[in-house]
């Protein structure tokens, strides 16, 4: 068994087994997901520690950009101001050591590359009777902007220019093409703010302790820089794949450190790890010397499922939603299968014949057996696929019947048909849960809105006999429902690749149970959301509270036991995959 090349992702006992998705409110400060060093399986297996850290984009900018500049100013370069240090860090891809080295080794070049002039004179001013060289409008009264170079343009043009420049995450320079001067981060935001429609709610910032960082708090250029920085370090950082979620997860451990700038290596590393998870039948192992390890049973508890700051769970490896009970390689194979045309190809194989001459596919949907290929005009017999002319000219009579040849073709066709039907069976169920999940989400959104307006109405009229904790059960139900569906959905992908062993029946029964409770829960949600019940939705919610709570628990339990069933089944090799399907 090859020990050295394997990463094991371990999770806190709670993280891995408790899928109830408790709200994160109580452990917001503790955003390290600590993992025990002890391996859950074989003691001799040198399990390594995988640690993940949750970030919001804002925290990320604060820590890695702004605090980096503050630190430089406090410790190494007190003679520089914060703005210039930010520009230098931005220019040198946020590497503090590079800034220090360049500052002392080649000061003039650094200042030139960064577009920082010796004397600064950046002005936004009101101007009378100004004609802007960009838009060529004559303004009676307009704000203009110029950097120290004196290239002056109207603020409207500058604003649109900044907006387009924002996309690439680089420092923004003067509009004039021959001019290298950089617009400082604060100034870019100042110009954006001039055009910003929404005035920021002061209450929102109320709890933030005003520091040097706070004036950079909503800096759009820094956000864009963060995006491109994070995207350039894909092995270390993964965005949460949930729609509209701006959180990310960082892999913090020794692997990340020594593989930092080597994305390819890391990917290979991961896929090596996966290849040890592969079924031997796939022969997908790159390195033959590692082949003994493919006998190792699959352990899906090692799947690096992480959760972002707002509770979205995803697989760090695939950067895809939580796909348990399926291991990563099965997921990849499934997604590829669903995407590519292999099933179309299977249909063609199963339902058509090729013209014996030009090999064009022909579907015979009736008519006689005297075929004429539309492409090459070759005439042949649909029964024996030989030239038509040998069949005589009068009536159809095919004596050229070669049974073995014919049988081979038909057997092949039959197999293709069965395989297609099998795929469709699982795909249909997979897709149904996916679309139901979307439907559920819409319904849940509506209920949530209604609930919130109901609550605020109640508290306004001082009628409130409900508190937020009283409706927590509703939120729990929403989470359980979507997560239950997700697991169900992936269990059909699991089922598709599963070999027909005796234990498979146990898996299917557990799956069926989850299916039932999920549908029950979904039904109540649907009923509450029914237009007919528009007026009494809150009443219905309260009436069904008990049922909702118990179904929520049932779904969570069912989900848990399905994953556990898959996990133990795979571990004990009572469940196996066949990737050759």
């Amino acid at each position, binding site marked *: 068994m090859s020990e050295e090349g394997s990463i094991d992702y371990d999770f806190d006992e709670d993280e891995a087994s408790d899928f109830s998705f408790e709200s994160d409110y109580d452990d917001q400060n503790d955003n390290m997901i600590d993992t025990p060093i002890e391996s859950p399986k074989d003691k001799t297996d040198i399990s390594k520690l995988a640690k993940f850290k949750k970030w919001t984009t804002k925290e990320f900018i604060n820590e890695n950009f702004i605090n980096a500049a503050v630190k430089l100013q406090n410790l190494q370069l007190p003679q520089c101001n914060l703005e210039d240090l930010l520009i230098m860090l931005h220019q040198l891809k946020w590497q503090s050591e590079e800034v220090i080295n360049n500052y002392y080794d080649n000061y003039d070049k650094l200042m030139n590359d960064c577009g920082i002039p010796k004397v600064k004179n950046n002005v936004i001013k009101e101007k009378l009777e100004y004609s802007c060289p960009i838009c*060529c409008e004559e303004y009676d009264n307009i704000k203009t902007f110029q950097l120290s170079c004196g290239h002056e343009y109207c603020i409207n043009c500058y604003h*649109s220019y900044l907006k387009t420049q924002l996309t690439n995450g680089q420092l923004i320079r003067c509009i004039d093409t021959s001019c290298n001067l950089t617009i400082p981060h604060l100034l870019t935001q100042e110009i954006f703010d001039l055009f910003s429609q929404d005035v920021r709610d002061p209450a929102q910032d109320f709890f933030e302790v005003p520091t040097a960082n706070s004036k950079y708090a909503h800096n759009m250029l820094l956000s864009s820089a963060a995006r491109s920085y994070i995207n350039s370090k894909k092995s270390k950082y993964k965005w949460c794949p949930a729609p509209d979620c701006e959180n990310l997860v960082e892999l913090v451990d020794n692997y990340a450190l020594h593989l930092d700038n080597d994305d390819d290596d890391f990917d290979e590393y991961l896929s090596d790890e996966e290849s040890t998870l592969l079924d031997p039948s796939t022969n997908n192992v790159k390195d033959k010397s590692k082949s003994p390890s493919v006998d190792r049973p699959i352990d899906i508890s090692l799947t690096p499922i992480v959760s972002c700051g707002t509770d979205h769970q995803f697989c760090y490896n695939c950067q895809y939603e939580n796909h348990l009970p399926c291991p990563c390689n099965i997921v990849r194979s499934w997604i590829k299968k669903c995407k590519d045309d292999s099933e179309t190809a299977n249909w063609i194989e199963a339902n058509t014949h090729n013209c014996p001459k030009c090999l064009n596919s022909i579907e015979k949907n009736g008519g006689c057996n005297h075929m004429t290929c539309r492409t090459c005009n070759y005439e042949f017999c649909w029964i024996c696929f030989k030239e038509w002319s040998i069949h005589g000219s009068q009536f159809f009579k095919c004596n050229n019947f070669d049974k073995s040849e014919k049988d081979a073709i038909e057997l092949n066709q039959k197999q293709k048909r069965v395989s297609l039907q099998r795929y469709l069976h699982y795909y249909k169920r997979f897709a149904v849960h996916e679309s139901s999940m979307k439907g559920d989400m819409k319904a849940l959104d509506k209920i949530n809105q209604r609930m919130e307006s109901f609550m605020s109405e109640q508290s306004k009229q001082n009628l409130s006999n409900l508190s937020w904790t009283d409706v927590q059960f509703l939120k729990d139900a929403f989470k359980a429902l979507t997560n239950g569906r997700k697991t169900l959905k992936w269990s059909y992908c699991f089922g598709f690749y599963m070999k027909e062993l005796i234990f498979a029946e146990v898996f299917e029964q557990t799956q069926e149970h989850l299916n039932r409770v999920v549908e029950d829960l979904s039904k109540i949600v649907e009923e509450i959301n029914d237009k007919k019940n528009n007026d009494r939705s809150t009443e219905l919610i309260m009436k069904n509270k008990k049922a909702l709570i118990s179904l929520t628990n049932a779904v969570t339990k069912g989900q848990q036991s399905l994953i556990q069933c898959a996990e133990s089944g795979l571990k004990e090799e009572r469940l196996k995959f066949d990737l050759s399907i």
Partner: protein
Amino acid sequence: MHPFHKRLLKEFKSLNKNPLPSIKILSNNENLTNFDFEIEITNGLYDDKLYKLVVVITKEYPVSPPKAKFVVGTREAGESGSTGTSENPIDVSSDTMQSSYKIPIHPHIYSNGHICLNLLGDDWTPACTIESILISLQSMINNNTDMTRPPDDNRYIKYAGEFASKDGFVYHDDSV
């Protein structure tokens, strides 16, 4: 009417008043958002000498660069330039009094006319003009000595849209 009509008008006037050497406007629409230019290449390497460039001003101009590409088409004879014999089988008109525009051979110009020029993408700023594009294209071709298509030409033209997209390019080699 384009939101920056005044700017376009100013550029158009300046192009007419001070025409660029070896470049002429073949046609333009009333809104000044579509232009056909004829660019003459005089470095002696290009047999055809005359090439037709289409420039389309987008709604976002001048914040975003215009779209530009070379196009094929018939050229009225009797106009300036060579009537060099053509090896292109599509060009059946060389016997008559017409000849045709072709796509100039250049390591940054795809055979469908799309141009890989950073001024048309990342390097564009609103201070650039149609004229700056014409000048850099003309000099890009005039200074070229490598008579080849881009290395990924076959693959690229298979999937390319009507115009080159701003972000789709990898600038293969900035030396030419």
